[in-house]
């Protein structure tokens, strides 16, 4: 399996993902799953600024990502899959083979209604429902901002 990281991060591609995780995991492809972003050239240009030219950046709609995920899981690339929210990640995972994969919640910021789990992680009821759907889909969900940080387990995410 060559999807090296599934990550939920509102900031999508940024320093922590590219330098913190990408370097550690030797990622060479970043896939951003976001319907609105897949259709927005100027936004894509901004997100591409964070990635060195030799890396591949793909902006996919949820439907396109669901279709392509089985290929990313077996082809030669080392892929990082990013979504902006837990719900999109759950929609992506359901029914598509991600068995045993670890889904990393790495950056969901404060918004009214969200409760703090970690300073980098705030969840509301919708997020927690999506976490349960991810678990039902056979993935292991943990909170972690950087590779060296301690994993935050399900008990704390759903508390």
């Amino acid at each position: 399996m060559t999807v090296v990281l599934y990550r939920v991060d509102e900031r999508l591609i940024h320093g922590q993902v590219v330098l913190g995780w990408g370097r550690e995991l030797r990622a060479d492809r970043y896939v951003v799953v976001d319907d609105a972003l897949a259709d927005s050239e100027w936004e894509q240009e901004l997100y591409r600024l964070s990635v060195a030219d030799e890396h591949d950046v793909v902006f996919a709609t949820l439907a396109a990502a669901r279709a392509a995920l089985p290929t990313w899981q077996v082809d030669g690339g080392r892929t990082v899959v990013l979504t902006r929210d837990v719900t999109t990640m759950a929609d992506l995972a359901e029914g598509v083979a991600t068995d045993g994969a670890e889904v990393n919640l790495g950056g969901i910021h404060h918004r009214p209604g969200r409760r703090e789990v970690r300073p980098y992680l705030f969840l509301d009821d919708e997020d927690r429902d999506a976490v349960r759907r991810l678990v039902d889909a056979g993935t292991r969900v943990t909170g972690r901002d950087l590779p060296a940080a301690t994993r935050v387990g399900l008990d704390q995410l759903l508390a």
Partner: protein
Amino acid sequence: MSSAPKGSGAAPETPLPPGVLRAVQLRGMFVQASWNYRTMQGNGMAWAMLPVLRRASEERRAAALDRHAEHFNGHPYFDSVALGALSRLEVDEADPETIRRFRAAIRGPLGALGDRVVWATAVPSFALLAAVLYWMGVPGAVVAFVFLVAYNALHLAIRAQGFALGWEAGTAVGPRLRGLDLTGRAERFAALTLALVGVVSGVLLAGGRGVGALEWPWFVAALGAFFVGYVGGVRLWRPTAIVTVGAVAILLALGSASLLSG
């Protein structure tokens, strides 16, 4: 009322009083003054945007203040690009969702740019250049003055040109930033700094008697240190790098001690 493309770089239809944008820029100086873990620079960005937001229509104003107070974390100097572009978007009455998405997309790249260009390159390089000046015999007060003037010339240039670029390009600022190749320029400047580190280390090892008194083995050692740092430095895992720097520092101390006693 406005039919111009929103935030597309078209000139705003109602010209702003000249002081408004300047006020946003000046307030940008304090963008980290209420930094917090929830919204990071969010409060600072909203406060900096106030001169523009005050001119928004009644129905836009409250929501506009809210969206600019949301989470933001870029870089205190490079945030000027965002402030310029966001001012343009608010003046053009762009779709609030576009503004929100622009804020979300621009913060990461600006943070990365600031890290590389300012924190990882400009600060150590300018400090080192100052150290070299001091070693050459320039009085300390003059060195400090030169350092502060040179560093802040760069700092204020980033703020002023960043704001102008953002105001001009709006949401299309991405390709413009890429075209400037600031990261590439910073990397070349960092290479120059590394060369200086090598030379200065050699000079320190030679007992501070100046480059003129530098015997050739020290010069070779300095060049060697430069190339090792240049090739290997970026690949070192952080604890490894700390150990390496520590080891070099101990060697330097031992070397100077033996030179002094000998």
